[in-house]
């Protein structure tokens, strides 16, 4: 207890050194927090991309490398409609990167009066009825300053905007819908769909629906809202793995940062630890002092680091120009994890410096003048 109190008092009386040591730790933890937030954001973006909003289930080609590369025959739709538990099914084409001015916008090819489009709430205009017409979400309309009557260009094809809808699903509100046939033409998938949106009847739960479809159509992958993106396809698995790699890199970088900071603090204060040794402190007592100091400064650094990390995540995405694809996802869990990891790093990163401090030769250190 005395060791702790004295250490706290010593840290308080050296505010600049404490701040700089904490800052070194903060940079490490900020790296962890920022990369975790970016990785989480990337994963979540993938998850939202797969979320089909109002539809209950999305049916994709199994083992497709990416949801947008899934190819299903439109004839599957009528077979699905007759499957028990399914109230409605409608084909969809997903077009990604085809709106030149806003590559992150997802454009759906859909039938104008399917159960999916019927749920759209229009804030202006109405659903399209012609082959060269489109409706767009409020987000896309705001970003591109479009109103009904304006033109939306998708893959060099011009569509007149007939309505603006709001769904409350970012990926849909930031995108648009064009006729299915037009989307098939753009994607070269005549008579095919990327996915089939399925609405279940009231008596069928989502799990039952997934089981039924999987049973009748073993070549399909069925995704429900909230299903992890990693199940959607190879690319999503890769994305998930990438997030893991980023987190590990963050841990290594952060860990080295924390350890280096603490090691420097020990090296700088060799004389101090030599003095403690000379007046009878055991190696364990000296090491404990270093560890206490390490954990306390790490906690201070962690608080600072989390703040820097949140800011840094947005800056990182901005610098990479990826803000249209990835929104850093900073959750309490992420912050808690970064804090926990930071403290663990403080302890683990402090072990070697503490060992070094405990082994400082008083004869050598005190003889240096």
């Amino acid at each position, binding site marked *: 207890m005395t060791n702790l109190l004295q250490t706290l008092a*010593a840290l308080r009386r050296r505010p600049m050194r404490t701040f700089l040591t904490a800052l070194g730790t903060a940079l490490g933890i900020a790296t962890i927090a920022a990369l975790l937030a970016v990785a989480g954001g990337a994963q979540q973006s993938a998850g939202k991309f797969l979320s089909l909003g109002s539809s209950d289930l999305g049916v994709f080609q199994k083992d497709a490398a990416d949801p947008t590369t899934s190819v299903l025959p439109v004839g599957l739709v009528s077979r699905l409609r007759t499957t028990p538990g399914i109230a409605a099914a409608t084909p969809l084409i997903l077009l990604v990167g085809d709106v030149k001015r806003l590559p992150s916008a997802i454009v759906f090819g859909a039938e104008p009066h399917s159960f999916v489009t019927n749920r759209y709430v229009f804030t202006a205009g109405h659903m399209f009825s012609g082959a060269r017409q489109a409706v767009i979400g409020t987000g896309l309309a705001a970003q591109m300053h479009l109103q009904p009557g304006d033109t939306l260009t998708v893959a060099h094809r011009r569509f007149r905007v007939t309505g603006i809808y709001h769904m409350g699903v970012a990926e849909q509100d930031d995108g648009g819908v064009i006729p299915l046939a037009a989307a098939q033409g753009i994607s070269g998938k005549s008579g095919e769909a990327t996915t089939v949106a399925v609405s279940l009847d009231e008596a069928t739960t989502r799990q039952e629906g997934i089981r039924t479809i999987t049973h009748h159509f073993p070549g399909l992958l069925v995704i429900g809202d909230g299903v992890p993106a990693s199940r959607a396809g190879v690319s999503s698995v890769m994305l998930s793995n990438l997030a893991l790699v980023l987190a590990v890199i963050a841990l290594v970088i952060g860990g080295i940062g924390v350890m280096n900071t603490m090691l420097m603090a020990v090296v700088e204060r060799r004389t101090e630890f030599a003095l*403690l040794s000379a*007046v*009878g*402190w*055991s*190696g364990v*007592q000296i090491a404990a002092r270093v560890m206490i100091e390490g954990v306390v400064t790490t906690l201070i650094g962690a608080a600072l680091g989390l703040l820097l990390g949140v800011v840094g995540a947005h800056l990182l995405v901005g610098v990479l120009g990826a803000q249209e694809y990835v929104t850093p996802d900073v959750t309490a869990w992420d912050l808690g994890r970064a804090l926990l990891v930071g403290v663990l790093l403080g302890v683990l990163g402090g072990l070697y410096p503490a060992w070094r401090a405990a082994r400082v030769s008083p004869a050598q250190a005190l003889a240096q003048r």
Partner: protein
Amino acid sequence: MPGSRVAVEHVSRSHGATQVLREVSFAVEPGEVVALTGPSGSGKTTLLQLIGSLDRPTSGAIHVDDIAVHELRHPASFRRDVVGFVFQLHHLLPSLTVQENVELTMVAAHVPRRERHTRARELLDEVGLGGRPHALPSDLSGGERQRVAIARALAGRPRLILADEPTGSLDSAASDRIWNLLVSVRERHGTTILIASHDPTLREHADRSLAISDGRVTDAAPPATIAAPPAGLPAENAESAGKAGKMV
């Protein structure tokens, strides 16, 4: 508590090819104040470090009472309970107050907080700094810092004080005060004091002096004296040791 007897027997210390101490032998009796004099680089500091277990001899033996210092594998308790160090540079921890610096040894010994505070205040009174327990070392003069260092050295109630150039960086007035303090410590507690200094006037304050030159003690006690058992030194040997080394 009476002072310790120190017996140094054929001690050598080398760093690589450099021989710092060569076959040094001498004895210091309990309660003696002995000056180690010699020029800079003669081996005084190394000798004190070896006696205080801050370093280990290349060869030879060092006994403090019945403790074989040269064989200590875990010297922390020896440094804490037997020895008090005073260095030329006070080596006070800059982030701790005067009182906290004095308490360091007692913290290591797990002395209860209240007792620690009381004893630290008493020691600060003893060295004339009772009114400044909460000052930081940076607030003190060189002489005051050295007095705090002496209080810290006394905090563990040591039987042996090893002082390395304790007045080396002080003016004459501050030096006199430090000397008077060390002498009074011996008078009140019977502590054995071994002081290294390149200042020849040190002899005036010590019971006797040992001159060190080029790693050798040139006027040490005769071998017959130091060969005696560390504890329970025969009276005639103790007497001869005192006579042989007495310089006053």
